[in-house]
Every structure is written in structure tokens, then in C-alpha cells.
């Protein structure tokens, strides 16, 4: 595989984005390309562990770090961009931990040695980057404004960051590094949406949890948390909720029919990904942004508003 060129970045898709959340994957690539960065998927990626491996010691860190090694070895890139917040959390957690703790680093390297896939040891010199933070810092709001051809005038959007994009600071370095977002009141998505011409609403649940992690074991908790978020956004007058995490989509979008069945029409609101809205404003068609993939039917609202 060729090494990366200047306007390319190594990209980790993750399992959800390659299958049921392909809308997020494709729109992320479209938007990045339009803004001047091509996302190149790393070959042979493996699952990050999605938080279910944390009780497995160094094995939970090996899984994301193997992908960092792939990026370095095959694509020659120290950093890795990803769109999924859970993957982002797992990567940043592993990197922060092995940086801090020599024992854990050597335990991870032991596994690397035994697997024998790479000839070198892992050195924690790269960073995991969330696509929102990546685009904001590398290209900036001005670049977004420049690319807008179809402003989303009159669309009220409730930005939903979820948990793991900004928390915890000890892993993601929010508040700690100047270029990073604020941990309790993130603003990058707000700025992007406003640059697109859309209106953001304040509804108070921007960084609340959707219970996505327990969505299979403990539906009821997840449904309760989701219905709180959706109904608050609806009350604040939002037309759609914008997401940056496929796990939030699993809870808020895929399960929405069940939530509505349980909590009533107050909990019904179309869900879209931030990058889908960006793609729409950048002049791509609704079909290219794959709005029809969302279960909560955002197409209705978008058609009504005339986009």
C-alpha cells in the first residue's frame, strides 16, 4: 500500500460505519474530500473493543493499538482519524494509558511480539482524532463557510455530542489542550452548524448519555434517557437532532419507533448525522447524503423545509 500524500489522512472506519451506519461513513468521506482532505481507510482494520473489553486488561488496549500500528506501517501515518465516538474513546483511552503507564505499555508490546504481525514495538507517539475535532482544527469554520452552496436557512438543529466525544478529559484532553473542545459545553458542532446557515437550539441535553451501551442488555434505561433527550430537543423547537456517533444513532434513531410506542409522540424527532447536513449544504443531493437510511425519516422535514 502506498504511503499517504499531503492531502490525505489515515482513516479508521469501524464496524458500525461499514455496515448499518454507512450514511455516516460515506458522508464523512464526501465532506472531508470537499474540504480538501481525502480519508484513506486503513487496510485490515480490527474492532476497537467498543468498551466491552475494558475488564480484559492489556488485551483491551491491544485491539485499538493494532490499528495505530497498521496506520503507521502500511500508510506511514502516526495519527488516525475516526468518525465513531466509541472508537475514538477506545483509541484515546489506550494511547493515554500506555503513555502514562510503563507496565501497561510493555504488556501490550508483549502481545504484539507474540502475534508477530509487526517487526517493531509500539511507541505511543500518535494521536487518535475525532472527525469533528479533526476538520475543525485542520480546516476550520472558514473552510466550511467557503464550501456552502446551499445554506440550511431556517433549519433548527439540536446538536447532540453524546458522552465520549468530550469525556473524560484524562483521555481526550478536552480542556487540557488549547485546540480541543470544552468538556462540559462543547461548541465545535454548534460552530459548524451555524456556518452551514442552520440555527442551533439550546436544550440542555447536549452532552447527556443516550444509554447506547446498554441498549441490548437494559433497553428500559436507554429508552428513558433517549426519550428525555428527544423530548427536550423537541420542546426547544428543533427540527432535527444532529449526531456524531453511530452508537447514539443506535439508541436514538434505530430504537425510535419503540421509544415512541412507549413514551408517546413527544419522543419523535428526525435524527441525522452532522456530516449528512454538511454534505447537503455543500451541494450533494439528499440521495448522496443517504438520508433515507435513517429510520426516523428526516427526509420528510427536509422536504417540507425545501432543501
Amino acid at each position, binding site marked *: 500500500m502506498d504511503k499517504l500524500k499531503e492531502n490525505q489522512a489515515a482513516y479508521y472506519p469501524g464496524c458500525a460505519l461499514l*455496515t448499518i451506519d454507512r450514511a455516516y461513513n460515506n458522508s464523512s468521506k464526501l465532506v472531508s474530500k470537499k474540504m480538501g482532505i481525502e480519508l484513506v481507510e486503513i487496510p485490515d*482494520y480490527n474492532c476497537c473493543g467498543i468498551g466491552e473489553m475494558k475488564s480484559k486488561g492489556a488485551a483491551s488496549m491491544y485491539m485499538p493499538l493494532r490499528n495505530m500500528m497498521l496506520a503507521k506501517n502500511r500508510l506511514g501515518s502516526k495519527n488516525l482519524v475516526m468518525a465513531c465516538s466509541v472508537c475514538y474513546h477506545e483509541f484515546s483511552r489506550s494511547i493515554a494509558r500506555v503513555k502514562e503507564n510503563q507496565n501497561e505499555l510493555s504488556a501490550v508490546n508483549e502481545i504484539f511480539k507474540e*502475534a508477530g504481525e509487526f517487526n517493531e514495538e509500539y511507541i505511543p507517539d500518535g494521536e487518535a482524532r475525532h472527525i469533528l475535532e479533526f476538520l475543525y482544527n485542520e480546516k476550520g469554520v472558514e473552510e466550511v463557510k467557503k464550501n456552502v452552496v446551499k445554506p440550511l436557512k431556517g433549519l433548527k438543529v439540536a446538536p447532540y455530542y453524546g458522552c465520549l466525544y468530550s469525556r*473524560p478529559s484524562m483521555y481526550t484532553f478536552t480542556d487540557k489542550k488549547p485546540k480541543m473542545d470544552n468538556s462540559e459545553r462543547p461548541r465545535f458542532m454548534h460552530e459548524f452548524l451555524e456556518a452551514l446557515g442552520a440555527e442551533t437550539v439550546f436544550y440542555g441535553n447536549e452532552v447527556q448519555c443516550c444509554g447506547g451501551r446498554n441498549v441490548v442488555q437494559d433497553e428500559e*434505561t436507554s429508552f428513558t434517557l433517549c426519550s428525555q433527550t428527544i423530548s427536550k430537543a423537541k420542546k426547544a423547537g428543533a427540527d432535527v437532532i444532529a449526531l456524531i456517533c453511530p452508537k447514539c444513532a443506535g439508541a436514538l434513531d*434505530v430504537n425510535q419507533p419503540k421509544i415512541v410506542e412507549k413514551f408517546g409522540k413527544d419522543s419523535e424527532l428526525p435524527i441525522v448525522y452532522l456530516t449528512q447536513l454538511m454534505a447537503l449544504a455543500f451541494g450533494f443531493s439528499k440521495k448522496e447524503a443517504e438520508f433515507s437510511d435513517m429510520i426516523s425519516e428526516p427526509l420528510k422535514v427536509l422536504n417540507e423545509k425545501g432543501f
Partner: protein
Amino acid sequence: MAIEKHDKENSGGGRPVAEKGEHIVARHLIEDDNIKEEKNLVIDGVDVSGRWNTFIISRVNSEFDRSFFEEIKKTVAGSRINRCWQCGMCTASCTVTPLYRRFNPRAFIYMMQLGNLKELKKYIDVAWRCVGCYKCSQRCPKQVNPAEMMEALALVIKKYFPEEVKTKLKLDEEVKKIYEDMIIGHGRLDLAKLHTYAIQKSGRTKELLGKIERDAIFKMVKDGRAFSVLRLGKPHNWSSSKEAMENYLRKLNTIENTEAGV
């Protein structure tokens, strides 16, 4: 599991009858037998009947098991347990506590510090309700990382109460097992399979044929996403990584290696 209701109903319109020790904050932490209420109490000639007549009999726990503390400290998830100074910020910011009053991260960490298994046993049914939102870890003034401490708690419960895990936490345990088998075994996660397995395990197979599920499946077949799941495959050369990880887990000399015992 049903979400607990904490507001007591006002019956009959008049003043509600006070329950035993009702006005104690965190009442659920105290057992009924340990609350003493006197009808008419006079101390040093002062009548203290009414609200002030409630006493809590102090608990004495002298059987500290420090080996237990060391055991948790050795794990990766629970390595910072010694830093906790019990300020309660984790419980105050918890997402789950408002839904399940008995879910109390601060108390769980305290019980783990003391090695108080007897007390921990009472909370097995709520102990795994953590949603992993990391608000606690974000706000913890000592960087204890309570979110991951809950993972250590799960390990403790798995090791010391395998019977209860089998009865009360059957679904959680099985879903976790599906996740682990899939992630370690195949290197990638098949979400469709996971979802179907989990619904089957929870004995709600009928729901799979319900309208909502059917609509979702139909939609995914129609737009082709159902087939992308089939194409997901395995990373090249994954078997060497799998073996290395399994070897590591086998050699682990801590509480983390309790899988074989259950």
C-alpha cells in the same frame, strides 16, 4: 427490569403516614432493623418525640479484608481505587442514579475498599447498570476513574458470586460473552448478529417478528445494508492476534482471569 419509582403516593388526600426513617437521606443504604424509633423519648428532661426520635444503630465492621483491596488494585480497570477519598462527586453526576436509586458508585467503591462483600452482595442486581458515560471520571477530583471502577466491580461480582450472576445477571453476562466472542474471535463486530443473539437470549424471539423489527429488517434488505453485514469478514491474519490475546488472558495472574472459574 422496571425503573424504580421514588415518589411515594399520597393516599387519601391527608398527610401521608411517615414510613420508618423516611426523612433520612439515602434511606436505602440503611437496613430496617438498624433504625430505632421511640414513641415518646425524653433525654435529660427534654421531650424529643417527633422528627428527632429516629436513631440509626451504628454498624460495626471489623473484618477488613485488605487482600481484596490489593486484588482490585492489580487490575487495569481498578488500579486507582486507592485514590478515592469518598467525596461523592461520582454519584452526584451519575446518569443512572436518578433512574435506579440504589446505584451508587461512591458506595460501591467504598465497599470495594473495605472488602465488604456482604454489603456488595445486596447490590448485584443494579451493579452492572453503568452506561459508561464517563461523567464521573470527568468530574472526579482525584482521577479515580469510577466508570472503569464499575468494570472492576463486575469482575469482583463475577468471581465471588457466580451463582447470583447466573440467576440475576444472566442476560448481561450472556450479552457480554457474545461481544467478547465476536470481538476476540472474529476481530470485527457484526451488529445484526449481535442484536439477534441478544434478543434470542433474552427470550423475546417473538419480538423479532413484531412490526417494528420487521420494518427495520425490511428497510435494510431493501437498501442493501443487510448484505454489507455479510461482507464484513475478518481482518487478514487475525488468528495470530487472537491467539496472542488469548494467551495473554490465560496468563493473567489477577482477578481479571476469572472467566475459567465461572
